[in-house]
């Protein structure tokens, strides 16, 4: 464990073109399940059902690698992040960190690992204690873990402030004296204090203004490159995830429907849901006479995770759904023609392209009705 604290170059993140998996992943998650029980009754609380937030998730994160986790709200991406940091205990499945099974580790067993897995939260206003100074906030994890850096904690905090681009003079200020972007930097400094090897970043930029988002993304990217920190980057913004993560997993209703290197996921997606997600991203480019990307409009919202559809969970919103999708859960496998490590869970995968189709897929009844009406009048 001697190399764990050094900040020298670890085998860097693999670039876009994939390549083989690193030999020993830093984190391995297998069959991860988290059910939140629903109870009713005032005195005798009966167990009446479960919110199946995460329902069988497998992935690995290599040393210094960033895995992006995308999906809609309620798909279980944040819960996955909290399970990995063991803020929640999994119902089933295993989490192996650096060769050790931590899925049901006790508080005591977790203590040394907690400092290596840190978290950055979404809301920079809620995640900093307004009564503590910046210095206290950042040094607190060191106090709790009994870390005494050479030169004292204060010196280390000042270094950290400098690393994240804040003025070390601000050591004694309170969080309300900072803007949203600066607060997020304080959160990053706090996460860095214990020299983590894995950071779970849960929507780290979605609460920030557009012009500030880029500052924080660049900061995180520098940390990843220079300190070799691995990231689980949870976000719903597909363009930012693509920018930040070498590999991307797409989640839907508690399961991973597609996972692969970013070139495959964004350029050659196979799962219909990945196609739908990508085609829904509003891009800051002006359409030129409709050519370009495909247009898919799903109907309605994500179903409830309390009573998810049988078989493939996406089938209720999918244009290719058939009987088999209801009876048989598609396994997450490598499809014919997919690159190594690009896995898809679908019985009837799509063509590996995001180019425009002959005809748009419009499943939304209101859209379809209005568009049909305007088509006939023209």
């Amino acid at each position, binding site marked *: 464990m001697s190399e764990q604290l050094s900040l020298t170059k670890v085998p860097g993140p693999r*670039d*876009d073109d994939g390549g083989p998996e690193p030999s020993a992943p830093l984190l391995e998650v297998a069959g991860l399940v988290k059910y939140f029980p629903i109870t009713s009754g005032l005195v005798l609380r009966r167990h009446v059902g479960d919110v199946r937030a995460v329902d069988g998730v497998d992935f690995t994160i290599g040393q210094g690698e960033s895995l992006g986790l995308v999906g*809609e*709200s309620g798909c279980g991406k944040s819960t996955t992040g909290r399970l990995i940091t063991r803020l929640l205990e999994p119902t089933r499945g295993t989490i192996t960190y650096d060769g050790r099974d931590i899925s049901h580790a006790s508080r005591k067993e977790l203590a040394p690992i907690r400092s290596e897995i840190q978290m950055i939260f979404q809301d920079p206003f809620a995640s900093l204690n307004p009564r503590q100074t910046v210095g206290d906030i950042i040094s607190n994890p060191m106090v709790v873990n009994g870390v005494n850096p050479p030169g004292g904690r204060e010196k280390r905090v000042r270094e950290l402030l400098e690393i994240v681009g804040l003025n070390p003079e601000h050591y004694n200020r309170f969080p309300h004296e900072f*803007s949203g*972007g*600066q607060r997020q930097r304080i959160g990053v400094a706090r996460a860095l204090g214990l020299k983590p090897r894995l950071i779970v970043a849960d929507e780290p930029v979605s609460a920030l*203004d*557009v*012009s*500030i*988002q*880029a*500052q924080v*993304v*660049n900061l995180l*990217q520098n940390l990843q490159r220079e300190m070799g920190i691995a990231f689980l980057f949870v976000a*719903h913004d*597909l*363009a*930012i995830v*693509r*920018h930040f993560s070498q590999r991307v997993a797409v989640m839907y209703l508690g399961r991973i429907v597609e996972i692969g290197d*970013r070139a495959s996921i*964004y350029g050659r997606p196979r799962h219909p849901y990945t196609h*739908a*997600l*990508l*085609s*829904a*991203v*509003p*891009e*800051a*480019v*002006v*359409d030129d006479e409709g050519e370009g990307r495909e247009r898919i*409009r*799903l*109907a*309605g*919202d*994500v179903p409830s995770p309390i009573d998810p559809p049988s078989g493939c969970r996406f089938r209720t919103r999918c244009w290719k759904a058939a009987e088999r999708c209801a009876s048989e859960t598609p396994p997450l496998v490598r499809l014919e023609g997919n690159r190594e490590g690009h896995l898809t869970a679908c019985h009837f995968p799509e063509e590996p392209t995001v180019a425009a189709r002959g005809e748009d897929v419009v499943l*939304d*009844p*209101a*859209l379809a009705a*209005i*568009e049909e*009406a*305007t088509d006939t009048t023209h």
Partner: protein
Amino acid sequence: MSTLSQPATKPAADASRGFLSVRDLYVHFATEDGTVKAVDGLSFDLARGSTLGIVGESGSGKSVTNLAVLGLHNPRNTTIRGEILLDGQELTGASERRLSQLRGKKMAMIFQDSLAALSPYYTVGRQIAEPYMKHMGASRKEARERAVQMLGKVGIPQPKLRVDDYPHQFSGGMRQRAMIAMALVCDPELIIADEPTTALDVTVQAQILDLLKDLQHETGSAIIIITHDLGVVAKTADDVMVMYAGRCVERGTVREIMRTPRHPYSWGLLGSIPRLDSPVDLPLVPIPGTPPSLLAPPPGCPFHPRCAFPDQVAGGACRTERPVIPEDEPHGAACHLTPQQKSTIFAEQIRPRLR
């Protein structure tokens, strides 16, 4: 670049130009710390059947402007000066009674947070029916039928059953649809949508944006869409106004703003967001610094502390003199750089980063 600024390129919509016309609008709030100049000299026009996208960061005055159009500011601590003409009617000095006749009928609003904007106490159907009864003099029964019809139109399944549901029984996307139904129930001529899709998932966002666009085709209403998401603007708007510190810093058609932006702030906005096809090995180019305080905005151009080019302007005008958008240019930017400088900087430094 001068060919781009010919006013003759405007489409034939000129006849209905200025359905909504805002001139020199100032909205100031008196607070304990001083006067907040939330909107500070803003002018724009909106034609019938077209969509204006207002882009800017939080605190740039986007929402304040539109609340002023609707007359929803508290008169006790708000000073509104300037001219807001809706279809020839002056709204700035209008009485509360006059405004409430217009709100919901001639102009309607779609809010960001549908859970907060809908009352939890009344059924969705009743909330949609209310403005219809008020403005159209419809009976309870007629209004209920209209509510069912509107729910069906915005794509709520089984509208006859869902009309009696309460907002909490709807999902986020359905609530946003219900809000659209409520805004459209009296066929308003002006719809103001304030971040209508920010709280929604991408797949639902795409549905809602397409729905708004399709409904506009059908009804011909004018739409103002307020957002911080340039992607949303690119997909929905005809014209774009970029706001910064309570002022319009650039205006033009969506194509002009996305393809050949002229203001350093617009360059910054476009450069700081990654795209689905941009190269991944290059770092993003953020706008340095933070948005200015509206209590004491910087002198001169409010963007100059964050701008990379004030030194290229002769005499340091950026620090002393507030730039204005030339009146006669449909695509104009409030910037002291000469058109020559702007096109060279854009071509040499900015455009290569955008693709």
